[in-house]
């Protein structure tokens, strides 16, 4: 991890020095050692502060559409997938970005981590030690196997070999092997899902952090739910209205969502949004046989129409 971090800093400094890019987006240390924070570097001094560890939660691709300069971005497989999806949709230009692929071992799920070690608010240090995540709280080092606190998504990550990049930093690494924490019963029907999401969305405060942290949610300032003319969303706010918003968002990003889970980690109320997007993702895969974030020259399935799709859906 230390070596990888050093290599990333060197690469960033090299790119800035040579004038290949004017900005590098990566991760830096946040207020909490168990939470890295996005860092924008335009000089050597700042580039020397880049870090890489299993607490680099954010999907940095979210910043690319707003950059108006040649930008290098550090890309885990999550970012790489989003970059491919954004390129496929023409939201960013290939010549304006330089992708520094990062060999990722997986990312810690902050919710799982807090369940395992208690509140991380007062952590004084957090790091990976072999196959364990160590968090120091109140002078006590709490140790937990990485596989137990890694994101569910990381366990099934198959993008290690196919990461889209201009340069790859680090050696491909084994992703953690563990059991997903959120298991949906096999016989889950519409009623089960309705009850599940009604309970979860009861906490939603309509802050739109999920939307703003999502690279696929690039409408930003023109989001349908905040439209000042047409009312797609009622002004009151309860579990049902929240479901309406999230279902709408899930459909809008269907076939474009790479299921990175940035929305879930952004949620201040800890709503397991990835699950919603995974369910929609499964349907997209089944209906269109499409893998999001794989090809830069293939439009998302809901933007195109093929005759065989009609036959497949039984019409």
């Amino acid at each position, binding site marked *: 991890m230390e070596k990888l971090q050093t290599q990333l800093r060197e690469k960033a400094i090299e790119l800035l020095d040579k004038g290949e890019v004017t900005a590098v987006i990566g991760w830096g240390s946040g207020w909490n050692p168990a939470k890295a924070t*996005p860092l924008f570097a335009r000089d050597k001094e700042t580039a020397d502060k880049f870090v890489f560890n299993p607490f680099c939660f954010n999907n940095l691709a979210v910043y690319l559409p707003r950059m108006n300069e040649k930008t290098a971005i550090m890309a885990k497989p999550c970012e790489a997938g989003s970059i491919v999806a954004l390129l496929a949709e023409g939201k960013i230009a290939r010549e304006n970005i330089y992708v520094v692929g990062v060999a990722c071992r997986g990312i810690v799920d902050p919710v799982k981590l807090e369940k395992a070690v208690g509140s991380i608010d007062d952590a004084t240090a957090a790091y990976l030690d072999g196959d364990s995540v160590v968090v120091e709280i109140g002078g006590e080092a709490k140790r937990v196997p990485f596989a137990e606190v890694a994101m569910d998504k990381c366990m099934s990550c198959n993008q290690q070999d196919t990461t889209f990049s201009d340069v790859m930093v680090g050696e491909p690494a084994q992703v953690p092997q563990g059991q997903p924490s959120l298991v949906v019963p096999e016989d889950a029907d519409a009623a089960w899902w309705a009850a599940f999401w009604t309970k979860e969305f009861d906490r939603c405060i*309509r*802050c739109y952090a999920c939307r703003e942290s999502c690279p696929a949610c690039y409408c930003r300032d023109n989001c349908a739910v905040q439209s000042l003319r047409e009312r797609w969303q*009622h002004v009151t706010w309860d579990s049902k209205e929240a479901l309406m918003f999230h279902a709408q968002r899930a459909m809008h990003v269907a076939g474009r969502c790479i299921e990175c889970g940035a929305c879930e980690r952004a949620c201040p109320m800890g709503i397991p949004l990835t699950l919603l997007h995974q369910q929609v993702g499964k349907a997209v895969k089944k209906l269109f046989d499409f893998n999001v974030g794989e090809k830069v020259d293939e439009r998302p399935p809901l933007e195109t129409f093929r005759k065989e799709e009609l036959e497949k859906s039984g019409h």
Partner: protein
Amino acid sequence: MVTKILPAGNIQSWIDKLVASYGVYAPVEVEGASSFKQIKAGQAPAFDARTDLSPKGIIFKQVEKILSYKKDENGIAIEYAPEEETKTVIFGLRPCDARSFTLTDKPFLDPVMPENKYAERRKHTALVTMACNKACNTCFCTSVGGAPDEKVGDVWMMNLDGRYIVEALTEAGEELLKTAGSLSDATVDDEAAAKRIGETVAASMEKLEVPSAKALDNLFTDEAFWQNLTAKCLSCGACTFVCPTCYCFDVKDDGTVKSGDRYRGWDSCMFFQYNRAAGGHNPREFHWKRMRQRMLHKFSYFPEKYGDIDCVGCGRCIKSCPVSYDLRDFIQSALRATAGMELGFAEELPTEDQVEPLACDVKPSDEIVKTGVGSDD
């Protein structure tokens, strides 16, 4: 007023007594997220830590109907939402949260243009403040005029190893304490112990120097400062919605020309639509302009108008930010950026008696009250 001691083990029976006569809101954890919810008798609140959501929404609702309207051949009929009279107690809020209500009172209990629904609920709500026995590492109340043991609210209390030292700060507080059962007088030692806890907790927080309102005002034009500071901001509303002092709202009608309802709900200055004017112009088109507004409103405009910083240092925005934006970074960067800055520009502005007051600036004692503007007529 005098400090008393609530014996160990008596807090739940007091809460249960309160539940019998008031709507009691206390910290509750649901699915890992904590907030203030109405509790039932026997339900033990989760007093351990600062809640993820502030109690702001109990008095200043996230969304509420303010009126219904109907238009027919007889004219326009308006039916206002009934006056809120439920007797409410917010139990176990931290001094920072109690203080936040005293700040929001300034704009919302303005005698010329009070925010009626807020004013009604505020009048019927008593605050039982629980002083802090420890600080989170996002806390910075001492930097913005507060303290972990600040005596604010109607009743003040602090945990002394299971016993609580309590004090009624207002008449409403005295009423609440009457239901607490037998209380003994606090000894000099008890008071000393409480003082020591307050000092220890305060000492565990870093006390930041906050630039003056005027100095920050001068930072307005330093665009590079704001762009660098807010590069990672996603412009979501998480910080404003978890914030106890953010009080912006929007009014929306739901219905047709003939009939409908009018709602008032929280808004966020971080949203693009917040600033968009009719015709499409947006003076705060970019996220850094919106963040500048949020920071300067709290640390410059509000203090200039009302005398206090509109931030209580609860640290929720730091904890809830999806990209870990740290408000303390703003305070420190702004202090560096404004150090040695010449405050010429702001000082050259004409003084109050040199300018004609705008209609919106007229004070309660002036013409505007006599003409009845702002009343329901």
